[in-house]
């Protein structure tokens, strides 16, 4: 009796669907090609996973509060460009350039949040506008050309963010630890802290939250800032790891990140979010991208699979939600 109720409860959790999907995905790809679970391939998947993952973690909290941010992909491209431009022109050290890039990102998040909460403009429009402003600035400043990046060798910033080492046969980047730390911290905030309760209330019923004295606008502005900073950090990490700072990089990431979050079980309409689900969603999409290439499906077909996964998971989540609401 007790056992069956535990099983029932885990099935009812929003993370259950994504978890099963990930297991199936891993099994199928491994079945087709045993190299899929080779240490080298796992290392590859993990390296890039955490970069988009950092953005997805912040986006989970933002979406739980009922908003989303389309400007993250453009910040992913813009921040490293800004950092390298400052460094290459001799204005700042690499580390100071990094701090400046994060501060500019925070300011952009603040502007997003201010437009959404004070002018009451939907976040879709505000962040779409910001996407164009930020991407346009990156292209204008660089005339569309990638920045020189080869002088990061030996910088402690590069070591701390993307230094790599081997654990057995696995090549691990420092960024993985930053991702794990961020996932634990934000998971804690969302489920255990008082702030998490406010984030969920802000997304679920902002009027009720406001009536209880919760500073809904403050919560949302804070999350927009967090989202921008994480996108900026992810961009810098990616740039240091690949030794490239291309003003076009990160194009389309906003939609992939939002897809990761909703596949994991966070509601697009706000009020409900899960960090564990997002981590699963991140893995599902990255494993899919890696796996279909590995088993010989043309990479161009990637979007077909992603689209199908999103539709399938949405159907599952909506079904679970209705069951849940009905109290069964």
């Amino acid at each position, binding site marked *: 009796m007790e056992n069956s109720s535990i099983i029932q409860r885990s099935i009812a959790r929003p993370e259950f669907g994504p978890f099963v999907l990930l297991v199936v995905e891993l099994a199928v790809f491994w079945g087709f090609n045993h190299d899929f679970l080779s240490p080298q391939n796992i290392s590859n998947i993990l390296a890039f996973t955490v970069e988009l993952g950092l953005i997805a973690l912040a986006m989970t909290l933002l979406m739980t509060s009922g908003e989303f941010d389309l400007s993250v992909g453009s910040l992913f491209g813009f921040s490293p460009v800004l950092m390298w431009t400052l460094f290459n022109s001799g204005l700042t050290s690499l580390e100071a350039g990094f701090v400046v890039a994060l501060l500019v990102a925070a300011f952009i998040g603040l502007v997003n949040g201010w437009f959404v909460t004070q002018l009451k403009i939907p976040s879709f429009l505000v962040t779409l506008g910001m996407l164009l402003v930020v991407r346009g600035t990156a292209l204008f400043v660089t005339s569309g050309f990638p920045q020189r990046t080869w002088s990061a060798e030996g910088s402690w910033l590069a070591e701390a963010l993307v230094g790599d080492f081997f654990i057995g046969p696995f090549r691990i980047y420092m960024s993985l630890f930053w991702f794990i730390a961020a996932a634990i911290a934000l998971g804690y905030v969302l489920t255990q*802290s008082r702030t998490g309760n*406010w984030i969920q*209330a802000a997304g679920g*019923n902002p009027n*009720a939250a406001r009536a*209880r*004295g*919760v500073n809904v606008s403050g919560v949302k502005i804070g999350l927009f800032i967090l989202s921008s900073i994480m996108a900026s950090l992810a961009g810098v990490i990616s740039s240091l790891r690949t030794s490239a700072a291309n003003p076009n990089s990160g194009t389309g990431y906003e939609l992939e990140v939002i897809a990761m979050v909703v596949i994991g079980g966070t509601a697009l309409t706000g*009020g409900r979010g899960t960090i564990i689900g997002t981590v699963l969603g991140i893995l599902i999409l990255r494993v899919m991208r890696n796996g279909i290439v590995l088993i010989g499906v043309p990479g161009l077909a990637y979007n077909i699979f992603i689209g199908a996964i999103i539709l399938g998971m949405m159907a599952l989540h909506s079904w679970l939600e209705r069951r849940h*609401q009905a109290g069964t």
Partner: protein
Amino acid sequence: MAEPLVRMENIRKSYGRVQALVDANFHVNEREIVGLLGDNGAGKSTLIKVLSGAVPLTSGDIFIRGKKVDFRSTSDAIAHGIETIYQDSALVTQLSIARNLFLGREPIKPPRFLNRMDQEAMNVVARDLLKQVGISKNIPPTTPIGSLSGGERQAVAIARAMHFDSDLIILDEPTNNLGVAETQGVLSFVRSARDSGHSCIFIAHNIHHVFQVVDRIVVMRRGKVVADDIDPKNTSVAEVERIITGMSDKEIRDAIVQGKQSQG
């Protein structure tokens, strides 16, 4: 006579040229359930919004236990012990009962910098409160509000107001869309709130529900309080209905003349 809990004097509220409240006078005594009745547009909602701090008044005074107060927001009203429960907007359906009860005032576990909610303490209090308002079924406090019935949601909202020692609980249409048994449940929550020392303002379209629970009935018409001392025990429903809608022929003629004059 003792100073009432809440006294509103000569309240005026206009939205542009529309006069929603015209010198309305209203009071609620300690440990009293007041039924506020009136037709659509009579000014009930506006009066309640003014009292709950949701809209500012144009002129007039509000006193709580004889002390003049100035509400600039709903938080001001809550701080003065006035809690308003709107049927649909009071709770967050995705959050659990316990988290809703403590929303905005969550207890924090030490060390405080971790900002960690004391969920255990919240659950204990929630379980106790649910018993107090008489939810008979054994509902765990971790249940999301979304899976509760309309009556149970009202009960949670009332329990919250009781726990945080609101002196006055304003219930706006608490029995709308509820079945017979659920309505009786809500009415008994209201009684238990009064019995534990709270006052209530009860607004409902269904006069029969009001009659079952209130100590005194106040009727509003065209922005004014037209009767404020109706004893439900000695008055018939029909009589109250006449006061709510009832304009004599002369009053109707006066209204038409007045309307023409104000247009001219």
